[in-house]
């Protein structure tokens, strides 16, 4: 197997402009991760329009957004450790052993250990993705409209593993996202759907308007309601650096967590928060002989951090190779590609080797940058936790308005963004998640168009959807991923009950 694409990718990622962009992405990512008020998906939604309107090429935009994404997995630990509030969803488990360490005056060690395990998780996962990506590229030509359609069925089936305790809300969100994609000119028949004679609607709902409204504006509204005035006081960063013995001590827990995190990340629909939870409980079960977990055990700190970084990186595998987003954040990145007229899917690797290679190469560089940012410079970010909301939230609002305005030069689009934000806020209050809406929006058109193209090719014969080895395999995978949680529950129930 040829790794030419990676060398070509390093050529892209090492260009001074892309190095700078990668650094900005990692820096902002760490900051966004550290600030509890704003998560990676918000950060990406806000930065995307800036990148797009300032004329950055697609690969640079992707390098920037990806840097924010995995950078946030590094940054999230800072507030978990120093204020016992996770900076983002993937850092929830980090607080369990990290915060007690900081209280004992070992904040420096806690930050360093978690920074190093983040690096281990991130770096090994990039290595895995480097070898996996070209394998999927080989399949590209086998994907016709029928296979694409079944792939989308599979992608939606993975939502089954994403559903919370109220599946109907996930499904409704998904259908709303799908409905939004039907606005505009129908790609197959050229018919005008839901445009109501407004040419502005001919190309459908603008992705940037939707994403910023759903995520940023609704977030600001939620925070207004909770009236988060002032800030929490972070603990001081004091104490000694870890020793080599400490690092040897966390080596195997980090490796195990990386494997768990990567696999969980690759599976569409699950992400960093699941990965860190699974790896933490695994380590606790394996190693907690003296009851030190939860009281500041560095293994309990290292495992979830390695896992959430591996998961964030793993989420790029389905995104880059199949065009199937593994999380809400990767769904936004896929939407970003579509802004550039790049159709995500199995052909991405063969048609855009520069883009895929550049992104993967930038992840090697980005993880090294992040290690530097997060070991000696961690004080800088710790100090930014003091940033009060009355500076932060106006900034988020300004970026939201500017992002939409600079992309479309239209006051109307900005007002629509606020309207969508109110809708998103109401749905979130009602217990709906925003990620299924974005997923439906990104995948909907691909699903409809390919189903209809497949049937156009076959002359209405449904059999075309089951006619190739690839499509049958995808059907089986779709069924399996829906049935799996149910089978596991049954199996657990049986092994839990005493043998008769």
């Amino acid at each position, binding site marked *: 197997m040829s790794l030419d694409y990676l060398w070509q990718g390093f050529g892209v990622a090492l260009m001074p402009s892309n190095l700078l962009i990668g650094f900005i992405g990692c820096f902002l990512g760490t900051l966004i991760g550290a600030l509890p008020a704003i998560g990676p998906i918000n950060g990406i939604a806000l930065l995307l329009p800036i990148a797009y309107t300032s004329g950055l090429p697609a690969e640079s935009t992707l390098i920037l957004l990806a840097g924010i994404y995995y950078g946030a997995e590094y940054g999230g630990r800072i507030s978990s450790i120093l204020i016992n509030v996770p900076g983002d969803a993937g850092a929830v488990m980090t607080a369990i052993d990290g915060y007690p360490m900081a209280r004992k005056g070992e904040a420096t060690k806690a930050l360093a250990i978690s920074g190093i395990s983040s690096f281990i998780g991130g770096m090994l996962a990039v290595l895995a993705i480097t070898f996996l990506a070209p394998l999927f590229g080989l399949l590209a030509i086998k994907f016709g409209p029928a296979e694409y359609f079944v792939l989308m069925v599979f992608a939606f089936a993975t939502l089954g593993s994403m559903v919370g305790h109220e599946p109907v809300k996930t499904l409704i969100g998904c259908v709303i996202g799908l409905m939004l994609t039907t606005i505009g000119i129908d790609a197959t028949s050229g018919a005008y759907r839901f445009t109501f004679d407004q040419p502005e609607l001919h190309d459908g709902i603008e992705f940037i308007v939707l994403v910023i409204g759903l995520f940023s504006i609704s977030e600001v509204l939620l925070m207004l309601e909770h009236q988060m005035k002032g800030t929490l006081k972070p603990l001081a960063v004091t104490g000694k650096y870890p020793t080599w013995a400490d690092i040897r001590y966390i080596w195997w827990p980090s490796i195990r967590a990386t494997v768990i995190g990567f696999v969980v990340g690759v599976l569409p629909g699950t992400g960093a928060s699941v990965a860190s939870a699974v790896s933490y409980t695994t380590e606790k079960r394996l190693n907690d002989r003296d009851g030190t977990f939860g009281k500041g055990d560095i293994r309990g700190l290292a495992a979830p951090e390695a896992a959430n970084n591996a998961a964030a990186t793993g989420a790029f595998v389905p995104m880059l190779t199949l065009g199937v987003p593994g999380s809400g954040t990767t769904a936004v990145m896929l939407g970003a590609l579509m802004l550039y007229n790049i*159709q995500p899917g199995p*052909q991405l690797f063969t048609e855009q080797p520069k883009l895929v290679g550049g992104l993967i190469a930038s992840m090697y560089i980005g993880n090294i940058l992040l290690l530097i940012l997060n070991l000696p410079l961690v004080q800088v970010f710790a100090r930014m936790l003091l940033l009060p909301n009355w500076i932060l939230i106006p900034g988020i609002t300004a970026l939201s308005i500017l992002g939409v305005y600079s992309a479309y030069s239209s006051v109307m689009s900005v007002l629509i963004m606020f309207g969508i934000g109110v809708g998103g806020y109401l749905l979130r209050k009602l217990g709906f998640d925003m990620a299924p809406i974005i997923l439906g929006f990104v995948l909907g058109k691909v699903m409809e168009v390919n189903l209809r193209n497949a049937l156009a090719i076959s002359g209405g014969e449904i059999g075309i959807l089951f006619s190739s080895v690839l499509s049958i395999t995808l059907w089986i995978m779709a069924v399996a991923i829906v049935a799996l949680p149910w089978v596991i529950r049954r199996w657990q129930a049986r092994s839990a009950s005493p043998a008769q």
Partner: protein
Amino acid sequence: MRPNIIAIAAILAGLTISAGAEPAKTECLAGAKPGGGFDLTCRLAGTSLHAAKLIKDPMAVSYMEGGVGAVAMNHIVGSRSGDPGLIVAASSGSALLLAQGKFGKHTADSVRWVGALGADFGVLAVAADSPIKTLKDLVAAFGKDPGAFPVGGGGAVGSQDWMKMALIAKEAKVDARKMRYAALEGGGAVTTALQGGHVKIASGDASEMIGLHEQGKVRILAVMSDKRLPGKFKDIPTTYEQGYAIDWPIWRGVYVGPKVTDAEYKWWVDTLGKLVKTPEFQKERDARGLFAFDSIGADYEKRVKADVERFKVLAKEAGL
């Protein structure tokens, strides 16, 4: 009477200054996202005009996405109808949409057509291992069993790619509505689907197919032109050579707003007329995969209107 005379004199003086003068600021509007055909047209115009020193300052390119140019045309006719420095990219696709009434109330008379800068040509291709070797084979085989030949194109039903194949269907005496037509996402997806065997015929543009044709991965059966194309295309026969009087040039040009004065319009026509003869322009045009297609001013206006009429007839025949 004296004040009136002064006023008239002032107006006349103003006219003599403005006639044939370069607008203070030039801008090209692409009615789509960056990276598409309209963007290409704008960049070709902007880069070559500046390189050939026909404008002093670089031309700004702006984007206004929506309805394949419909939003841009609305904007020009509505808010900037008299802006002398603003040109808007258009293509034969715009004429097709005008013919189908998809630009709302706008017609070919709503704006002033300045000139075409170049053209691509329609092609029909099959996979390299296909038994079909010529357009004649295709017409015969397609006429016998249209169901065996799913067609892939980069646009919806009624788009240029669909129309190209509908013309071939007509030669094969097949109802265009009976075509198994898949509307794929752009030219790249069409050639991928052709190589994967998902479609048997690809309808597309010469510039996007030639690379794979040269690599021996697809076979271009015919270029839809009345004349042989130069360069890499010199060995590929045209539709006319194979006995079918069908052509499909995809011209790319620009228009200005309806209230632009005759003098300002004439400046653009003259400038583009000079531009297309410069080596700077020809280099830029070739680099963008376009063929020479010089049609400026009144000639261009006539062509646009004739195309709109021709497309109206075609759409009607196809039952759209």
